[in-house]
């Protein structure tokens, strides 16, 4: 066991996989020598050499497209896209090739690769550095979309992501890269993709969330306690395939559900969860499922972010509305 933040936990996961599997390679902009702009890959080039951990030229479509080629040829590439907002030049490779190579060739060629990037707001960044594109990627058949919320989960989920034969979009909540420290096993362990986690049990309201907002939900739940509301928190861990069972069971128990996420709300992960609430728990619903999410706008620049970001207080407000319905 060591105390790790998420950056360290991820780095540790890479270290373990690089050490045990020579087919694992890592690359992207500034990933090698510098160890990435967030230092998530720091020290790995030195340890494993420039053939295995390296800088690429500045072109996201190429990073993903060549990564796919490597994967088809038998490697297990982990590619980094520098920020959420810079994943889009690679969108065509992801949706048209990465996600479907296995289907296109009926399994003749697989695409075991991890496409990882820091995502989300609250770091006072300029445009394109604060986005939450999970809904886009979750809508694409053939991808698995994973988002950890703690250092422990980051490590365990990353190891699963590297080991699965399906391509994985791995979104790293940058605002908690270093904000949460935790005891994490130094050994190799993995957390299954596709299973949600009950962060805390409760009876009145289910909060469904993931990534950086799990912590905000915990704060909100604490506040809600004072109002006499018992909150259950479900951390999805995986956006696709979504864990319908855990989500459904929790909602059937509480009868009230609030979805907490940062992306624009329309046509989003929030919409899908409302749908699942209906499909899995219609007769238990005591109030219409609600979303507390981003507006249908771009994440504002730093000065405007305070309006956009979902805060514990806003979560509490929504819970009270739900409760009083």
């Amino acid at each position, binding site marked *: 066991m060591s105390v790790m933040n998420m950056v360290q936990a991820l780095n540790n996961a890479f270290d373990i996989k690089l050490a045990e599997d020579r087919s694992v390679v890592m690359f992207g902009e500034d990933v090698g020598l510098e160890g990435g702009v967030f230092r998530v890959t720091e020290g790995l080039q030195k340890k494993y050499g420039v053939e295995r951990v390296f800088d690429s*030229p500045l072109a996201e479509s*190429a990073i993903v*497209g060549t990564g*796919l080629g490597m994967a088809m040829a038998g490697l297990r590439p982990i590619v980094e896209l520098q920020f959420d907002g810079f994943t889009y030049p690679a969108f*065509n490779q992801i949706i048209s090739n990465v996600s479907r190579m296995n289907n*296109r060739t009926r*399994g*003749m060629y697989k695409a075991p690769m991890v496409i990882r990037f820091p995502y989300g707001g609250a770091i006072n960044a300029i445009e394109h550095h604060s986005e939450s594109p999970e809904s886009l990627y979750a809508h694409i058949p053939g991808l698995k979309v994973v988002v950890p919320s703690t250092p422990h989960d980051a490590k365990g989920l990353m190891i699963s992501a590297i080991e699965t034969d399906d391509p994985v979009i791995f979104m790293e909540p940058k605002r908690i890269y270093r904000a949460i420290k935790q005891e994490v096993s130094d050994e190799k362990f993995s957390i299954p993709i*596709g299973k949600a986690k009950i962060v805390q049990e409760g009876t009145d309201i289910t909060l469904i969330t993931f990534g950086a907002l799990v912590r905000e939900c915990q704060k909100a739940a604490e506040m809600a306690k004072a109002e006499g509301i018992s909150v259950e928190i479900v951390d999805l861990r995986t956006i696709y395939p979504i864990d319908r069972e855990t989500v459904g069971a929790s909602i059937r128990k509480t009868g009230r559900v609030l979805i907490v996420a940062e992306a624009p709300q329309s046509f989003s992960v929030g919409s899908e969860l409302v749908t699942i609430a209906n499909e899995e728990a219609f007769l238990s619903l005591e109030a219409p499922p609600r979303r507390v999410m981003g507006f249908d706008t771009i994440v504002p620049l730093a000065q405007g972010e305070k309006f956009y970001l979902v805060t514990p207080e806003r979560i509490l407000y929504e819970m009270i509305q739900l409760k009083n319905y």
Partner: protein
Amino acid sequence: MIFNDFNPAEDKLFRIMDDEGRVINPEYMPEVNPETIRKAYQSMLFARTADLMAVSYQRQGRMFTYPPILGQEAIQAAAGMLIRRDDWLVPAFREMAIMLAKGVSLKEIFLYYLGNEEGSNFKDAHHVLPICVPIGSQYLHATGIAYEVKYNKKDEVVFPFIGDGGTSEGDFSEALNFAAVWQVPVVFTIQNNQYAISVPVQRQTRSINLAVKSVAFGMPGIKVDGNDFFAMYKAYQEAIQWARDGKGPVLIEAYTYRKGAHTTSDDPSKYRTKEEEKLWEAKDPLLRLKKHMELNNISLMEKEENVAQTDLSPAELHSGIITKDDLFAGEDTLIESYKEEVDRQFIAAETFRAYELDDVFKHMYVEMPDELARQKADYEQFLRWKEARR
């Protein structure tokens, strides 16, 4: 090195044979024996036969669509003869002939155009990627594969294909750039068949040719007469050597002409002239190789092997000693046998097992998510209901 002698920046075109089949640049003539030439012609003839029949199957309403390779056979025959089993073929969608050469069966190709993904699940071919429809995107896969080749110190070369239109896509440039920076073994081919559907290459780019784009990425490039089998063969030989020697990637522009329609849904008369088509008719790659064989007394069928290597002048040829008809005497019979083979393959594709519901779901993931199983089960319930209603 032909790459030095034919600098694309000076818009030089590498040819060995003229339109009449005469060797005009003997110093570059590759060492090919009559047997090889014969095989080349036969493989081109087979591809052409299959190609024409594919179009006719489509016309008969037995196949959905098909992009003819008519006129581009020499490029693919040359590459097909030089590509090794372990080398990688990364096609776009107009590479039927080299796919066959690399072990893909015609049945599989037909199956694909009959609308079944199993046509991209090559049973015998090794290291062949499926047809890639999003233009340019396959070029990046090739560069990535070549990275693995270098990483694992393998003795393989990667052969991606693209059209003239495809060179405008960002992925084309990115792929060349990454391959050059990484110094990986890729022989990039551009089949410049003068059109991207209706758009002529002159409206596609203003560069003096397509091979010169190699300059932007720091790799050798050459513009080759794509209808000249020998020039293509020689160019591939040198390019492959370069790549296999670890010197990095190479770019080959094969200058050719799409004699057919873009696909069976296209009508070229909308955008090009009969005159232009006629001009290129004279440069037909099969015709040219045939002329060359006749000039050099190389017969279509094997029996002539003893006669070979003797260069006869056209005059001698026409003097009646050996007539054209004698040399290519078996061609019609050969075509007939090819047709039968093509038809066998087509029927095998047509009679392939019926598409099942499971085929829609089974391969979307290696590990099928519960969600997909649920959706499938829902659908099966619908099917039962439907059955019951009958």
